[in-house]
């Protein structure tokens, strides 16, 4: 348990209190926690566990199973590039390589200045306007290296 002085506690209690009545509340709680802090602070796990009457290990097991939940905050901007087949058919792999080279990171990496995190995604449902990417939640179709450059300039300039 966190001591009552911990800065997370009041907001965390609110989040858990609002969702714990759901049937199967753990994923909605983890999503809400990540929406609040940009990641799931590890000190929150014990609080969630205690509120739901499950073990901390169980909460950790669930959060670590899903690709979406982060233990650490991402960079200021999150760039996701689709790696799935339809995007590969339209040059998705080359786009991914261009992005890695441009940012100087591999998948899941964050640029040295903390500006951009690069994540793979398997399908955004934009398979008829491939290759697809998503920057800070905004989806973009038919992305090539030039378009990517323009997007990065737009958000990170």
């Amino acid at each position, binding site marked *: 348990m966190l001591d009552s002085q911990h800065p997370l506690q009041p907001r965390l209690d609110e989040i858990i209190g609002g969702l714990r009545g*759901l*049937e*199967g*509340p*753990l*994923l*909605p709680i*983890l*999503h809400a926690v990540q929406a609040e802090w940009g990641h799931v602070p590890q000190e929150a796990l014990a609080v969630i566990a205690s509120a*739901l009457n499950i073990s901390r290990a169980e909460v950790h*097991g*669930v959060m670590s*199973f*899903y*690709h*979406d*939940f982060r233990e650490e905050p991402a960079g200021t901007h999150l760039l996701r590039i689709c790696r*799935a*087949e*339809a*995007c*590969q*058919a*339209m040059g998705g792999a080359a786009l991914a390589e261009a992005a890695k080279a441009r940012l100087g990171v591999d998948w899941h990496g964050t640029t040295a200045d903390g500006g951009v995190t690069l994540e793979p*995604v*398997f*399908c*955004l*449902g*934009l*398979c*008829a*306007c*491939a290759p*697809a990417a998503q920057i800070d*939640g905004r*989806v*973009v*179709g*038919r992305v090539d290296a030039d378009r990517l450059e323009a997007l990065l300039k737009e958000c990170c300039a």
Partner: protein
Amino acid sequence: MKIYVPRDAAARALGADAVAKAVVDQAARRGVAVTLVRNGSRGMVWLEPLVEVETDAGRVGFGPVEVADVAGILDAPESHPKALGLVEAIPFLARQTRLTFQRVGVVDPLSLDDYEAHHGLKGLRRALGMTGAEVVAEVKDSGLRGRGGAGFPTGIKWETVRTAPGDRKYIVCNADEGDSGTFADRMLMEGDPFTLIEGMTIAGISVGATKGFVYLRSEYPDAIEVMTEAVRVARARGVLGASVLGSGHAFDMEIRVGAGAYVCGEETSLLNSLEGKRGVVRAKPPLPALQGFMGRPTVVNNVISLATVPVILEKGAAHYRDFGLGRSRGTIPLQIAGNVKFGGLFEAAFGLSLGAIINDIAGGTATGRPVKAVQVGGPLGAYFPVAKFGTPFGYEEFDGQGGLIGHAGIVVFDDSVDMLGMARFAMEFCAIESCGKCTPCRIGAVRGVETIDRIARGDAAAIPLLTDLCETMKDGSLCALGGFTPFPVMSALTQFPDDFARAKEAAE
């Protein structure tokens, strides 16, 4: 003046929001009163953003529209270079049989009045006058089979849940559409969310369930937004709630968001995820129909299966059943994707040949190069060579060719694709997404990548090993992830052996 600019994610990914803003700005500058409707997509993705202007003759289309085109469309629509004429006369659309997608792209997605003006709620009203057994019989008679990929008869699943003992039952909609090349669920939820709500409500009242969940993947933020708002509207208007349309039947639903695990598209891992657990696959039996969500009898159906129920109830089982081929009855929303000229959603009766779909409807490749391979049914579907283009689109027909139709996604590749690379990707994807429960999937996929790398280095002795590994994965995995990954791998190996041999020469 009524103007439609889609709010579908694909249209937005191609600039629809900026176009919509330009329509409002330019109209204001001209002093023209414009009603802007953010509709769903008509499914002609190469024309997106497709702007439609309502005229006395019908809705006239323009596409693909850029911001710079908007002024011209408002000033001189007839002579605009991007004018497409009446949208419903565009051959790609005119040739379709739109039943499940009858309203997608047509209506304002969040207007329940618009929904009702286009035959919405007719199916539910009819169902409310029937017994649960009669509704289930109607769904059975329609021949509807699970559109998620497994093809299990929907009515039989409903009958199992209806007759199962249980004080609480659930309807769970599988909207975890993770297969590459598929976007029908997304388009339907973004373009006509009330159809899914109506379908789930019909399922609920006929099997005796009072609660539904839509398990919607986090990669679809637009669909999450539209569905959440549609549920709120439906509740406010008495479609959902303690007494559905005043009938005394209770049914309500929640939208739940996934968290990026592909395997949660498998129904039992979806149920675990919904319960707040790791998305690990469960052994069957017990069937989810008997012990599903929270151990209660549960209908788990794909978005398209549930969204097809309203039209079946509206027009009758026979109307739906009369379309199709063999044991594949009704229509299927084909999703044509990847390297194609005219990509998008094409709803048609089962039975079109793969070749007709790709050459005739999709117009061949976008790059203009010859087609080399077509993956049907997502990342777990087989690769088809051009030699198999005669295969008619149907569950049994594709099964007979060593493939599957899955969720009806069709991904086209031109002759620049390296099939060894695609086989390797299939194994890599399985390794990343495996839930870890079965050894053949968890370990086999990793060994599969290594074995394909050996073949790529010119070690032909690894080919029998890969074949053997695929057999083990197929027979020894609980679910389709480990069990079907061999489909793309083995079809690549057997249909495109040159790509596996060329790598050997290159290495020497």
